[in-house]
Structure formats: C-alpha cells, structure tokens
C-alpha cells in the first residue's frame, strides 16, 4: 500500500482546523539558516556568562550547560534538531541534545510541545521512559533537552527492516517493556497521546524507551475537557474519531495494541488514507459497534454522522486473528484483542495488560541481550564496544531497583 510515516501525520480529524498541529506541519523557513547556530562557540559559552540581567538562575543554567559538549547532528524532527553530545568531564558518557527550534513565526512564546515534553519527562523516571537528564537554554534562547542517548533507532525500524529476523519471544519482550512504560506513566496520571512505533526508541542495551511527550497531558482531573484531536491516525482509538472529550489511559492502550499488532504482522496494522476513512478501516476488523456492545456510543459527538447509518457488520472471527498473527500465539492474540476493544471501558488497562497470561505463556520473553537489532555483525561488535565504554547510567540503575521492588503482576 506504500504507506509511509509521512502519511500518518499528527491527527487532524473532521471538523477541526487543528491550529496547533497545523503550525507544526508548516515548513520552518528559518531551518535554512539553522546550521549556523550550534557552532562550537556554544561549548565555550563559559567565557561569556550572559547579559546585564545575569542572576542566580542564569548562573545555575550555565552550570548545567557547561556540563555538556555538543557533537554531530543525529536527526531532525518537526520541532527540534537532535545532536549527539557528551559530558564534558567524561566523553564516553554520551547524551542526545534535543535543541528545540525557535520558530520566529511562533507568536505565543515557547511552544506547547516543548513545554509538555519538559513538564512530563521531568516527573517520569522509569527504565522504559526516555530519561531527561537536564535542560538548559543557550543565549540565543533556544531550549535544549539533554536526553539519554538511544543509538539503536526506532522500534518501527525493526519490523520494517526485512533483514532483521525476529520471533514470538522477541515480540513478547518488546511488548512487555512498552506495557511497563505505559503502566508507569498512567500510574502517574499522565497520558502520552502519541504512542506509535516511531516514538519508541531503542537503547544501546536493547531496552525500549517511550519518547516524544509533546502531546502528553495529565488526566488527574476527570472533569477536564480534553481534545479528541490527538494520537497519530493509525494508532488512534475509535472513541476519538467519534469525538469523545473525556477519556483516560484507555486511549493510549489502543495505541499499544496497534504497536504490538504491528510487530506481530510486520506491517501497519490499521493503515488508512484519511481520517474520515479510518473508522471504516477499524470497523472492517472490529465490526460496527452498537449500543449493546458499547453502551453510550450513540451519545458521542460524531456518532450520528459517522456510524448511525452504517450497515451492521460483525467483527472478524478468531480464525482471522490466528491466520494473521501466528507469531504471538493464542495468548498474544488474546492480549491484542483485549487492548483493541472498541468500548474504552472494556479495553484492558495497562495494569490489566501486565497481569495478562501472555507474559507467562511460552515462549518466555527474550532476554534483553539476545534481542535482534539493526545492523549487521560489524555494527553489533561496534555497538558492544560502545556499550562497554558507556555503561548503564547510575540513574538507570537506581530506577531498575525501584522497578524490581514493584511487583509487576505476572512478571515473576
């Protein structure tokens, strides 16, 4: 079908002019001059600690800034350019420095994506959530996020790269790390709202890290009105297409289901061409939900225009799932179907997902060090060397201890 990530932009549902995401999609003119900014002078900024308003806060900022050295460019996102970096006092300790772009057209100060990313990552420390090490501004008023360095790319690269062979045990290990991350953020009353396989990055030790918290928000206040204009289309749950504006962790769990299914079929699971068409793609697999399957559905904002006059349709039978997802077995299929339950109330929560029998069924989840990875033998050896040099970060170790103390349900 030739789907590319470019066809799965951030959401833009019917009836919404999505001011925020529109801004994001706009080409950034000043990108062209951007390469002059992260010059080596940044690293020697210690010699010019600022303007006439130097206060204690700025000194504090300089203290943080001077701990890091910028290196080569790693990649480019819509809102940020990412550089390799390392600690000044230990060049073997790598980091990724995400320099948020300053859009001169942006009239409203620091953009919401950056604010949210800083807000939530500062609170959420977990072995499977990308670690925000520090934040500093450079004197051109760019905000820089120092993140743990994740050199093995995105989870999406794994299933897309047909050179990489993987099996049921690998999918299980990956899926479990994702569920743990999502459990943790939900336990902290944070919704990610953009879970997808290219927002899950891979660390040098093969562990997965949930990243990109630019759309995250708190759901601690159940009365708060939330936008249904979130989550990349392929991963967006039916209730958001129907205009639900009060939701909780269930929206992320649908996305988790899509990611696991994607790993299982090694392809997009619910690809579609447009937002309008996507609900049709969902009902093709899951049937047309009725008030009986999903109490309250007819009260959702777009139900009338989207579903009321759709002819009834039954969901695909179990045999369909068995033929599509042999890789994850009966238990895996049961988990995925639990996650991809149309009615958000009946959908598995992260906690329920972690308690699912899939994890204890055979095969056992793959050991982290044996997980397949991108690159040939050469790359692997180089990576191994690097890993030895870098070593796990102290913070990560501490978190791993905490994580062990929490009893992860069936993860005996």
């Amino acid at each position: 079908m030739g789907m590319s990530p470019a066809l799965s932009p951030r959401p833009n549902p019917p009836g919404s002019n999505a001011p925020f995401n529109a801004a994001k999609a706009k080409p950034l003119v000043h990108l062209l001059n951007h390469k002059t900014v992260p010059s080596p002078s940044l690293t020697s900024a210690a010699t010019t600690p600022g303007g006439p308003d130097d206060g204690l806060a700025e000194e504090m900022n300089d203290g943080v800034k001077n701990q890091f050295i910028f290196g080569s460019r790693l990649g480019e996102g819509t809102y940020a350019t990412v550089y390799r970096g390392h600690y000044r006092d230990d060049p073997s300790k790598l980091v990724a420095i995400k320099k948020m772009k300053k859009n001169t057209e942006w009239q409203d100060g620091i953009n919401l994506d950056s604010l949210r990313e800083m807000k939530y990552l500062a609170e959420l420390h977990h072995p499977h959530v990308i670690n925000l090490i520090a934040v500093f501004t450079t004197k051109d008023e760019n905000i820089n996020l120092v993140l743990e360095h994740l050199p093995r790319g995105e989870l999406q690269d794994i299933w897309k790269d047909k050179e990489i062979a993987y099996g049921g045990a690998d999918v299980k290990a990956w899926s479990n790390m994702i569920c743990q991350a999502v459990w943790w953020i939900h336990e902290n009353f944070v919704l990610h709202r953009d879970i997808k396989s290219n927002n899950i990055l891979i660390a040098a030790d093969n562990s997965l890290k949930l990243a990109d918290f630019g759309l995250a928000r708190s759901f601690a206040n159940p009365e708060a009105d939330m936008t249904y204009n979130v989550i990349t289309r392929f991963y967006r749950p039916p209730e958001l297409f129907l205009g639900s504006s009060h939701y909780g962790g269930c929206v992320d769990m649908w996305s988790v289901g899509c990611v696991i299914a994607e790993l299982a079929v090694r392809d997009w699971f619910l690809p579609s061409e447009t937002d309008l068409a996507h609900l049709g793609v969902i009902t093709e697999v899951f049937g047309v939900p009725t008030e009986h399957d999903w109490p309250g559905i007819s009260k959702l904002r777009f139900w009338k225009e989207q579903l009321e006059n759709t002819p009834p349709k039954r969901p695909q039978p179990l045999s369909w799932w068995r033929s599509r997802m042999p890789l994850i077995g009966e238990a895996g299929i049961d988990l995925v179907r639990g996650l991809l339950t149309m009615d958000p109330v009946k959908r598995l929560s992260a906690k329920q997902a972690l308690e699912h029998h899939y994890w204890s069924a055979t095969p056992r989840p793959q050991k982290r060090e044996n997980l397949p990875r991108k690159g040939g033998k050469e790359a692997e050896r180089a990576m191994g060397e690097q890993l030895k040099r870098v070593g796990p970060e102290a913070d990560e170790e501490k978190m791993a201890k905490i994580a062990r103390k929490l009893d992860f349900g069936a993860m005996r």
Partner: protein
Amino acid sequence: MRLNEDDLYRQSTQYKHWSFTPSDLTRLREKTNAHAAAQVQLHIAQDRAERAKLAPLDVASAPDSGANTPNGNGAGTGANTPVPGGAGDKGGEVDCLTMDEEKMVVDKFCETAMKLGDFLKLQPDVTATAIQFMRRFYLYNSPMTYDGTKISKTAFFLALKLELGTRAGSASDFASRLPKTTRDDIVAPEYTIVQALRFNFEVRHPFRGLKGVHLELEDMIHANYAGVARDGRSSADLRAEALAALQVTGGDEAEGKLGNIYAHAKDILAMAAQLTDAYFLYTPAQILLAAHLLAAPALTTFYLGTKIPSSSPAAPKILSTLQSCADLLSSHRSYTKNPAANKHGWADTDPPETKRAMKKLRACKDPTTQDLVALNAGKKRDVVRDGELEEGKAKRRKLNREMAEKESDSFWGPELKKEG
C-alpha cells in the same frame, strides 16, 4: 501494584527541587537578596556615572522624565535604562530591600496576581499554578530585579498554556484581556521565567486530595465507606464516630455541615496556602489535612485515626507536622474562622510594613532589568552581533562575572551536583 502516593511524590520535581526546610529556604532567599542588592548598587552607580558624563550637555535637567515605565507598555521605548527612584535619590548607597522586605513584596505580588486571576475568571488551578510559579521564580530572583506585575502576566500565560494546552488561546488574545499590555510584554520574559523555574512545570496542588478526603467522609457518614479503618472498626462504628465528631445526630444535618467544612478548607487552600510558604515547606497531603484540621479539628482527628491508629509511633509526629502547617496557614491574614466572610476583603488592607516595603522598592529597582521587552530584544541582538558588544556592556559583564564566580562556588556548587 498500585504505587503509594508518597513514593510518587518523592519522584516529583516539587519534592526534589522545590521542597525546603525553613532554614534552607531562608538561606536561599538571603543569597538571592544579597546578589540582587549588589547588582542594584552596581547598576545604579553605573547609571549615575553615565549620566554624570552626559551632565555637561544636559545640566541637571531631570533626565528621567518619562523614562520610568513601571507598568509594562515598554515596547519600543528603547533600551535606555529607567532612572532609579524617586525624589530622595541623591547618590550614595542605595537603600535596598532586605530579605524580609522582599518576601513581603513578593507576597503582595502574589495577592495581586490572585485578584488578577479572579478578574480574568481563570480556573482556580491555573491561578494557583501561576502563583506558585511566581513564588518559585522569586526564590532565585529579586523583586528589585524583576517587576511583579510583568512577571505575573507571563506566569499566568505560562500556567494557561500548561494547564489548558491548545485551549489557552494566543498571547495576543491574553494580552488584550489585560490593561496596557502587548503580546511582547507577555512573551518577552518567558525565558527568564522558565530558567528560574529550572524548567519544572508541574505543580502538585492539594485541591484534589481535599476532595478525596471529603468524599471519603461522606461515605463514612452514610455508612458505606468501602475501606476499612486500620483498627477494624465497622462502618457503623465509623458513622457513629463521624457524627459525634460533627456534633450532629442525623445524616442530613451531617451532610450540610460536611459541605461547609469542605468549602471552608477549600478557601484556605485557595488563599492562605497560595500566599504563604506552605508549598515549599509541606507536601500537598499535609497542606490539605492541615486546612481540614483548621476547618474541623475534631472531625479531622477522627479521620486521621482511621488512617493511622493513634497508638502508632508515627502518629504524634504526623499530628505535630499538621499542626505547624495549620499554624502557618492560619497566620495569614486571609484566614478566617468564619468562612462566610467577604472573600477578598482582607486583600485591600496591606499591613503597614508591606506598604513601607512597596514604597521602598520604588527607589531600589535594578535599572537594567525594568524594560523586559527591550532587554529581550537586546539579547537577541547580542546573539547576532556576538563579540561586538559595546564597551560599557562588556565591562558590566566582566563585573557580573567576577561577582557571580565568587558567589556561585559556595552557592551553586552543591546544588548542581544533584543535577548531574
């Protein structure tokens, strides 16, 4: 597999970066005050020297006409430094605010911000977040350096963006709702603020926790409390004791009283908790229980007993912490035992020492940081021109640097280690 609230709280930046012992808090404020006072002395002296150089041309003809724009609206007035102060400015040492005076001034800024929040009809959470941003900001910055009115506008906009996301509206929209305010006034100080906030944007408020306690108590008086008291009292026992603590006999009466208690405690959280150091010194759970304790001592003691048996060795310590937090909250002049009183009546009567401090502030503002819009634009220019700074500015920076280096070792050294 449920995490306990305390464990979650200890992970938070509010705990890691914004919780202090009283003496740590005082020490931090002393340092901020000392640093700012030195800057004020330096900059006012420089300002006078520059003026003296110009004096032969412009003999003593009040050079400060119109330059002093304390209320925003500085856009486009150029980077010229406003003249410090009023009539009494005859040279010599500047009489700077003391640490205690700074605190009074900041408290006053926050009271004004609270009124602004009401005026703009913002949700209580947004206002509370904005006020806490201001309180955090002024731990690292002095009101002599940054004007409270200007900082509060930006703090509100930041809080709006963080709490309401895309629904926050644009900076221009927000500016248009404020008197004499432009978009630039809102946006210019943002970097200065987020830097002082250490890029921590989550503020954990006690409001929802209070609601939780209220709902639990309601369940108790209706004898359908699902939890069990630690000591195994039955739900009928709990109901009887709750009613006794409320000094009522029937459920209806109890319900009404409970509602009043909740409203009273909520007011304490919305005002006294915002306008004191409560957030710096206590956890959200402690704050809400202290507010509840003030609103209903007997009932709160009963409630605590269902969580921690009074025989527990931890009980006395918990109670004394709550009592000291309650003392702090009730020390604020917004506190009233009678919750029906006029909500903001107290705010129009500044204590005389606050009035004095506000007056004193007018003569000791740092002249280099009053026009934030120009300052921001200047910074951007600096980046472009980098290296070709005017001599005066370069000199000023050198002085700044020397002073900063002297102070930062003792001050920031230990703080920053945690960061790495």
